[in-house]
C-alpha cells in the first residue's frame, strides 16, 4: 500500500496564486475524482505534483510514502511511481512509440536487471489491443498524426506499460467519442488494485460510469471546498456549482481587468467597453 499526501499546497503561476492551500490524501487501491469549474486549479494541481516547470510551489508539501516529492526531479517522480496522463500530450517527431516506452522502462530498471524483448513486445501488443489501437502503433512516432482520441488512448497505453503507483488523469475523457470513452474508462478501471490508485480530473459524469470511484472532491477558488461520494457529482450535474457556492459562502472571483491597447494586436474581446 502506498500513500500520496498533499498538505496545504500553495502554487503560483506567473506570479498569480492559483492553489491556495490544497489538502488531499490518496492511497493505492483508491480512485479519487476532482471536479470544479474551469480555471479553479485542477490541472495546476496534477501538473504541480508531476513537477511541471511552469508551476511554483510557495508553501506546503507533497509526500509519496513519506518522501518529499518536491525535492525530486520530474523523472525521479516518475520512477518513484507517479504518472501524469496529460490533457495535451506532446508530439515527438522521429521517436516511435515502441522505442519511447522501451526507453522509459529501461530508465526504471536496476543495473543488473535484464530486459526481455519478447515479454515487452507481448505486453505492448496486449495493451494496444485492449485499447483497440492500430496495429502499426509501435512504429508510429509518439502522438504525431494522432487524432485527439488516439492521443488520450496512447496516454493510457503508456500508463498500462509503466505501471505507476499513482496515475494523475487530467481530463483524459475530453475529446473522446462514446466508444473510446468506454474503452479508456474500462482500461483505467481494470488497473485498480492494491498497487494502483488514481486522481481523476473530469468535467463529465459519463467517464465515471466505468470507474469504481471512492471519493469526489470539489476544487473551487484554489481549495478543496468539499468532498463526498458519487452523489455529489449527480447533484452538480443537475444544479451546477452554484449550490456549493451558496453552501460555502463563496463569491464569484473577480477577473483581471482586461486592457485594450490600440495600435498593437489587440483582439476584439480584449477591448471590452472601449470597443464602441
Amino acid at each position, binding site marked *: 500500500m502506498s500513500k500520496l499526501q498533499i498538505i496545504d499546497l500553495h502554487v503560483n503561476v506567473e506570479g498569480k496564486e492559483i492553489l491556495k492551500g490544497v489538502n488531499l490524501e490518496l492511497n493505492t487501491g483508491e480512485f479519487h475524482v476532482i471536479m470544479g469549474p474551469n480555471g479553479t486549479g485542477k490541472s495546476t494541481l496534477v501538473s504541480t505534483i*508531476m*513537477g*511541471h*516547470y511552469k508551476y511554483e510551489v510557495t508553501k506546503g508539501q507533497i509526500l509519496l510514502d513519506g518522501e518529499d516529492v518536491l525535492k525530486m*526531479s*520530474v*523523472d525521479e*517522480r*516518475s*520512477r518513484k511511481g507517479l*504518472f*501524469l496522463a*496529460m490533457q495535451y*500530450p*506532446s508530439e*515527438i*517527431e*522521429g*521517436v516511435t512509440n515502441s522505442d*519511447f*516506452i522501451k*526507453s*522509459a522502462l529501461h*530508465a*526504471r530498471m536496476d543495473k543488473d536487471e535484464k530486459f526481455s524483448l519478447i515479454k515487452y513486445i507481448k505486453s505492448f501488443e496486449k495493451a494496444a489491443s485492449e485499447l483497440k489501437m492500430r496495429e502499426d502503433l509501435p512504429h508510429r*512516432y509518439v502522438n504525431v498524426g494522432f487524432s485527439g482520441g488516439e492521443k488520450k488512448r496512447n496516454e493510457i497505453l*503508456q500508463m498500462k506499460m*509503466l505501471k505507476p503507483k499513482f496515475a494523475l488523469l487530467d481530463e483524459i475523457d475530453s475529446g473522446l467519442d462514446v466508444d473510446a470513452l468506454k474503452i479508456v474508462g474500462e482500461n483505467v478501471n481494470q488497473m485498480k488494485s492494491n498497487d494502483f490508485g488514481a486522481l481523476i480530473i473530469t468535467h463529465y459524469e459519463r467517464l465515471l460510469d466505468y470507474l469504481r470511484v471512492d471519493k469526489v472532491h470539489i476544487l473551487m477558488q484554489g481549495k478543496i471546498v468539499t468532498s463526498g461520494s458519487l452523489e455529489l457529482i449527480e447533484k452538480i450535474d443537475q444544479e451546477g456549482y452554484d449550490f456549493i457556492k451558496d453552501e460555502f459562502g463563496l463569491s464569484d472571483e473577480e477577473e483581471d481587468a482586461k486592457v485594450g491597447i490600440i495600435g498593437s494586436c489587440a483582439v476584439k474581446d480584449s477591448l471590452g467597453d472601449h470597443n464602441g
Partner: protein
Amino acid sequence: MIIMANQVKVKKLVSIKDEILKNSLIKIAKGTNRVIFNDSLNRSSAELIIEEAATCTYITFDQGKQATFSNVVARLKKNATLHMYNIVTSNQNASINVKVDLEEANANVDIINLVLLINQASLDSFIDIYHHVDHTTSNLSNYAIAKDEAVITLNNNATIKKHAFSSVAHQQTKGLTLSKKTKIIALPNLYIDEYDVVANHACAIGSISKEDLFYLMSRGLTEQDASKIVVMGYVKPILDHITDEKIKKNVEEAFAEKLLS
C-alpha cells in the same frame, strides 16, 4: 525579375570553376541509376553530368576528422534526377558548395543537408540551384543542429530563369540550437524571372521544447536521455530517406556519439 526573401548572398561560388579543372568529372549515362558515396567532404570537387532519364544518389558523410570542404557542380539533362545528401557530424570547420544546373525539361533535384556541429566549429553551406528551362523541380532541405558554440550558416539560392515556366522550387530549413552560444543562420533566396512557377521557403530555428522535455521526463527519462531522444528523433525522419542500412546505422551512431561528447 522578382526577388523573394532577403536578397542576401553571403559569398560567391568563386572557387568552384578553378577547382573543377583539377578534379573529377563523373558522367551518369542515359537511363542508368547510380549511387556515389563519399566518406568525407574530402577537400575536393566534382562535376556530375547526369544524362537523360538517369538517376544519381550522391551521399557525402563527413565525421569531421579535419577541417574540410566540398565543391560539387551538377548538370541535369532531360528527365534526370539527382538525390544529394550532405551529412556532417563534426567538430571541425567545413564548407559545402553545390551548384546545380537544371538544363533540360523535367530535371529534378533533391538536396538534404543534415548537419550536427559541435565545439567552436563553423560550417558554411552554399547551395545554388538554377532552373534554366520549363518543368524543372528543386527541393532543398536543411536540418541543422548546433551544440556548444558552433555556428552554422545556410545559404539557399534558387533561380528560376525566364521561360522556365511550370517550375517548382522549395526550400526549407529546420534548426535546433542546443546551447545559448550557438548560432544557426538561414539565408533563403529565391530569384524568379517567370510568372507561372511555384516557389516557397520555410524556416524554423529554435531550442528543444521545454514541454517536450517535460513530457519525456514525466515518463522517467533523465534530462540528458530526453534531450538525446528529441535530437535523434529530429534526425531519424531524414535518415529514413537513406535505404542503405549500414550507412544509416553509421550516421545514427555518429550523431549519438557527437551529441554525448
